[in-house]
């Protein structure tokens, strides 16, 4: 594990920090909504004490809204926990299809902030590979950053995973302005250490508007 961090250096820490900050912002939003809803219940209660009359349905509706935010926070915290534990093991067997679904939920807020929707297509069968979940997530993020810069009209980035002869492949699709977005080298200096660690390769199909990330079945072999 130490050796892996030596290779990744500050980039890995920056990724961890960026994701943690985004999660904390999202939790703050949930807390802000709960705060306003409980404040509104308090306002209604004070006005009721002063003789005003409110439909009891309003209280029920506010309780439901608070419940929705609590479930939202629970999902955010579950994803945060999965992210934090992705560092635990240098290599682990994962179902890539499930992992992509997790990545989509995890990065959704970043996409929303750019006015982009992420759409993952579930694979028909399980796609088990042995890899480093944290470094894979970091590499998916770098690909996704380019993919979001390249998303065409409709602003949807499609994600899918499929089996290949040597392992598995993640595809980022619908990148209509990929040629224009590729101003610098990609994969560049940020991505290369991760590709080396994961024994992965990136292919770019400018005409089809796709980035393909090829992963081995077992990065430890």
């Amino acid at each position, binding site marked *: 594990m130490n050796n892996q961090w030596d290779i990744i250096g500050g980039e890995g820490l920056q990724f961890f920090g960026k994701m943690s*900050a985004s999660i*904390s*912002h*999202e939790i*703050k*939003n949930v*807390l*802000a*909504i*709960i*705060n*306003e*809803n409980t*404040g*509104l219940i308090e*306002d209604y209660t004070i*006005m009721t004490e002063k003789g005003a009359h409110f439909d009891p349905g309003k209280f029920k509706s506010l309780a439901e*809204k608070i419940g929705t*935010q609590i479930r939202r926070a629970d999902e955010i915290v579950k994803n945060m926990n999965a992210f934090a534990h992705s560092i635990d093991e240098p290599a682990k067997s994962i179902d890539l299809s499930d992992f992509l679904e997790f990545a989509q939920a995890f990065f959704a807020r970043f996409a*929303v*902030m*750019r*006015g982009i929707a992420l759409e993952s297509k579930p694979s028909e069968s399980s796609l088990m590979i042995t890899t480093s979940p944290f470094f894979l997530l970091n590499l998916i993020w770098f690909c996704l950053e380019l993919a979001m810069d390249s998303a065409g009209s409709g602003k949807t980035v499609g994600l899918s995973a499929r089996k290949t002869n040597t392992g598995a492949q993640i595809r980022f699709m619908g990148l209509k302005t990929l040629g224009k977005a590729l101003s610098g080298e990609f994969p560049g200096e940020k991505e290369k250490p991760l590709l080396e660690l994961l024994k992965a390769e990136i292919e770019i199909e400018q005409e089809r508007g796709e980035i393909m990330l090829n992963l081995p079945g077992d990065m430890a072999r």
Partner: protein
Amino acid sequence: MKILLVDDEEELVSTLAERLSFRGIDADWVTSCEDALKKVETEKYDLAVLDVKIPRISGIELGRRLKEKDPEMGFIFMTGHGSDDDFKAGSAEAGAEYYLVKPVNIELLIEKMKKVLED
């Protein structure tokens, strides 16, 4: 006092607007930059309360664009940053003098609104 609330969390701005109306403040709300810019074409607001992180452009940038349309409008920024210091570090250059960290205390918000209008 007439204000405009801008945050992509509809649940947050709609509830905050209702609570402000109970306190005698007329508050409209929108959930996007585009709607905020449209809104000021037809309505006159004393001030706008803007989320710093809204989709597509930042709240600070939206503030600049609103200011171009109505130079008299005052601003307060709401932020989901973890702490005051965290926000100050990133916003001082942008001139975001008045801000509150979420979750916002409504009485403190009203106090800040009054201060912005006095200034």
